[in-house]
């Protein structure tokens, strides 16, 4: 199926349009708040909270008997937030470290959720409908009212983020300073954590418990590679998230027997991979090129310093010297000499070289730097 066909399909197929809208919206919200999670070193919090949401979903269903998205959403948020409270309680009050706290909350909450779920189903195994959509996510079950809920919750989150932008920003980068400026950091912290919980719960139905952490992290981790500015990062992460959602939906719609959640996650991880390699400044490719270039410059400089030492021993610095005295230097080659000549540092012909005035000046400066340090 070509791109054109896909857009054609998108125009006619109501279900596909709904799902695409939902996954894109989820991607935007996750990207936005994931940026904060990544920068605050809370990456795995997403994993723990998504698991911790399960008992809340089941209890909400048990209490109301409704499968209404708003009811389940509220239950999930409450229990996800309870999970995050437990985590901070364990790390702040005991000597256990955050990774242990995350592991405990993740597995115990999830296990409890499963117990409740099998309890209401009265069946020994939990393969029944309902659980599946939260374990692995079922974008196909997204309905218009789910998308409405996503839209409303997403807008509220965005509003909060814009309102508290400055506070969240300094809280993320310097919590101590924030405290010293008189902000209530406990309150801000719980507000930001609640927003992250909301984003996670929003994604649960689409990509599922297990893959949620990647949905939260990937757009932000990718965006981080392209910029050092928070506002750019948040916008980029939202775009990446939306793209992953749309592309994942498109791919899984065009290939038979493939669920949407895993494809969305793979697309998102692919974006991370591309960013790791091709991002300017931080990316691996440019970093390698830069290192290679630096190494070359370093060699040239080393040769130049030696040339300066040789030349300054002679009353006339532009006196020609033999190339042979340079051959012992590591990294020496004729090619380097030609490069130095093209930079105007030396003049070079066949077997002799001499420093140009510019070369003498540069060499002198480097020699002094070397000896002062």
């Amino acid at each position: 199926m070509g791109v054109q066909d896909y857009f054609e399909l998108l125009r006619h197929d109501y279900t596909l349009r709904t799902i695409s809208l939902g996954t894109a919206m989820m991607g935007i919200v996750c990207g936005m708040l994931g940026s904060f999670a990544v920068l605050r070193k809370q990456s795995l919090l997403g994993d723990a909270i998504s698991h911790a949401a399960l008992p809340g979903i089941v209890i909400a269903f048990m209490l109301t008997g409704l499968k209404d998205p708003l009811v389940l959403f509220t239950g999930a948020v409450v229990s996800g937030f309870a999970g995050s409270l437990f985590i901070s309680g364990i790390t702040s009050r005991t000597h256990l470290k955050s990774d242990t706290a995350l592991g405990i909350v993740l597995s115990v909450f999830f296990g409890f959720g499963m117990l409740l779920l099998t309890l209401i189903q009265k069946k020994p195994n939990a393969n029944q409908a309902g659980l599946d959509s939260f374990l692995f996510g079922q974008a196909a079950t997204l309905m218009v009212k789910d998308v409405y809920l996503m839209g409303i919750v997403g807008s509220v989150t965005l509003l909060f983020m814009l309102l508290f932008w400055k506070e969240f920003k300094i809280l993320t980068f310097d919590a101590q300073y924030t405290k010293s400026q008189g902000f209530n950091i406990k309150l801000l912290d719980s507000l930001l954590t609640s927003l992250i919980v909301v984003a996670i719960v929003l994604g649960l139905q689409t990509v599922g418990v297990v893959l949620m952490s990647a949905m939260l992290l990937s757009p932000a981790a990718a965006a981080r590679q392209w910029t050092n500015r928070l506002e750019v990062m948040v916008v980029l992460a939202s775009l990446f998230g939306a793209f992953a959602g749309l592309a994942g939906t498109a791919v899984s719609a065009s290939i038979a027997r493939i669920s949407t959640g895993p494809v969305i996650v793979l697309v998102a991880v692919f974006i991370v991979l591309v960013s790791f390699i091709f991002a300017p400044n931080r990316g691996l490719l440019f970093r390698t090129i830069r290192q290679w270039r630096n190494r070359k410059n370093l060699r040239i400089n080393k040769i130049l310093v030696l040339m300066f030492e040789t030349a300054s021993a002679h009353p006339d610095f532009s006196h020609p010297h033999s190339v042979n005295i340079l051959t012992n230097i590591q990294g020496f080659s004729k090619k380097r000499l030609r490069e130095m000549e093209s930079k105007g540092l030396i003049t070079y012909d066949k077997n002799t070289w001499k420093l140009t005035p510019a070369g003498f000046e540069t060499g002198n400066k480097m020699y002094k730097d070397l000896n002062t340090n």
Partner: protein
Amino acid sequence: MTSAQIEIQAIAVVVAVACAIPGTFLVLRKMAMISDAISHSILPGIVLGFFIVQDLSSPVLVFLAAITGVLTVVIVEIINKTGLVKEDTAIGLVFPALFSLGVILIARNAGDVHLDTDVVLLGELAFAPFDRLIVRGIDFGPKSLMVMGGILVSCLTLLVTFFKELKLSTFDAELATSLGFSPAIIHYSLMSATSVTTVGAFNAVGAILVVALMIVPAAAAYMLTSDLRKMIILAAAFGIFSAISGYWLAHMLDASISGAMATMLGFLFVLIYTFAPGKGLFAIMEKHRQQQREFAMLTFLLHIKNHSNNSSNVEERQIRHLTGHFNWERKQARVILSLAMKNSMISVENQLVTLTEKGLRFITEALDYIVNNQKSELESVKGRFLLFR
């Protein structure tokens, strides 16, 4: 109890003990979330293994899946080394990616593979006794019991053989390295043991309960002791407790066994988290209050000392002055006064407080100590002087 019930409990107990051993080291090495990552990222390995041998408890499958587990750790380390993202982000990216691959592999081959992602994630202990190891007509018991038994024995052997090395490298990696133990070898051995145990256990209890069985008993044991040997034994004991009580809870409620086991573990942890002597919630609160009390007493004694010299200021040493000057509640004033009297720091005559000789010595030494060692606590001085606290 029927024989199936006994077998289920036996499997649960073996799994719990096998998980407790690597789990203890993971918790101590601050790598608890690695077990979560491994438990998910083994999925593609399991699927590939299942394509080849068509048997979930075959050693070939265990081996293949364990390799995927170790591979996860390697990929996380490679990403970590680039410095592009923090380690926890790397973990959070790698395992969902591998898990997604596994899910897609299963979905694409649904017709040929009788493997359900739910089974991998949640496990089903109740069915374990039906999959039996029968060689030449002789029934050797459930396959997963055999596999897990083998894994448990190898874990125990490794633990006993390399206990000293593991202990040293866990608590003082630098010393271990300088003594010639390769940290890489120990690290990867531990990771391999974790992977193998996870793969062996997932079939019985599911990937998520594996995390519970590795982390929660070890964390609970760590709340109670700092001795590595005791910690491993306690963790194993907690695991066994959760296995048996979880089974019966599930039996009573007719619900998922692995869910019930995780719930029991959570219950146990909350109990220990709240009541553990020394490190539990109440113990820490009590310690906090004790420090506040003793600090208040110190301030009070200092105040008395400052006003002991000039007789003109007798007013400052009146008992009623406590509530006035220090702004203390009546009850708090009484507590602090009685604490000081019990430790014979002060004597009271006609509502007038006087420092005893012991009190004077205490306050002098405490002051000296505070001036000279600003950062450390007063505990040693307090320990010598305070009989009642």
